[in-house]
């Protein structure tokens, strides 16, 4: 478990340092995710290994970790009210466009390439 947490922190740490050193347009944790994936691919841990249990423990609480940032919305309620129409319209329409286009293009190319669907 601690092994897994150390691995996560070290991957993030290296990610943050590399991103800052090379001035990459990426968050450190995203590069850290790539490093962690590489580590998992090399180590091929069993399901009881700390390398598996550490990430699992954090992922169980992933929704909780977004709450403090989300609460930040209350600091901007008045601005949201002033420009309610462009904000609500721009947000909902572009969110929907991103969702639908990503799904349509990916599904379309998958179909052309003849891959089988993965359904539950």
């Amino acid at each position, binding site marked *: 478990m601690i092994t897994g947490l150390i691995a*996560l922190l070290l*991957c*993030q740490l290296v990610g943050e340092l590399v991103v800052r050193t090379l001035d990459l347009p*990426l*968050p*450190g*944790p*995203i590069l*850290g*995710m*790539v*490093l*962690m*994936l590489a580590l*998992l*691919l090399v180590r091929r841990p069993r399901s009881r290994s700390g390398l*598996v249990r*550490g*990430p*699992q423990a*954090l*992922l169980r*609480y992933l*929704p*909780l*970790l*977004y*709450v*403090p*940032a*989300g*609460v*930040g*919305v*209350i*600091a901007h309620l008045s601005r949201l009210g002033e*420009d309610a*129409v*462009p*904000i609500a*319209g*721009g*947000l*909902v*329409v*572009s*969110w929907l*466009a*991103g*969702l*639908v*286009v*990503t*799904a349509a*293009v*990916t*599904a379309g190319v*998958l179909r052309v390439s003849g*891959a089988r669907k*993965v359904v539950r």
Partner: protein
Amino acid sequence: MTFQPQEAWDWLLASPLFGITLTLVAYKTARVVWERTGRHPSLNPVMVAIVLTGGTLLLLGVDYDDYMEGGRYIAILLGPATVALALPLYYERRLVRQAAVPILLGLVVGSAVSIVVAYTVTSGLGGDEALALSMAPKSATTPVSIALAESFDGIPALTAVFTILAGVLGAVTGPAVLSLLRVRDLRVRGLAIGASSHGIGTSRALEEHPTEGAFSGLAMGLNALATAILLPLLLLVLR
């Protein structure tokens, strides 16, 4: 000994203990409500916990900055938790490798459309330039969207809010919208949610299905990169 409840109360509101306890109680309450209603999507725990926490702060007249004295101890775990998204991706590595080309194409096109539509619709509905520029990067995960708003004349604080709202929107309605459109492939569902609603959407996708969650986490990472590269190019045309 004097009786000084006001001093004690003021101390509490400025102490990390307050923000941490409030957040955990709000989240626990939101989870219980969610479970009791048969995991009803419109009562998504992240959204309910944000509303409960934010509502409490407004009611007590506590500033967001004071709340974050405690809130940041929870938020700091987001870094390693994002790294942890490598685990579901590792388990789905074969599926990811098989679908590499469709994934990349879908993400690049989806990311570009999302930026263009965000900018044009926001300004088309009467938003000023700064507002449209704050909306443009909102489908990327917060560190990226905020950095892009800073570099390209948006308002970073507003971009943070829009990013979170896009995430909550996806966590609450994303799976239902995809089902309505008869998108059943778990890879496609995950990619679409992660590309439009980053980590908050991913936290929902993980609860839907491990494969959907893995592809959502992947899409969040790739979309952050795509947005960072595409936004500067698209703004040359849009502005």
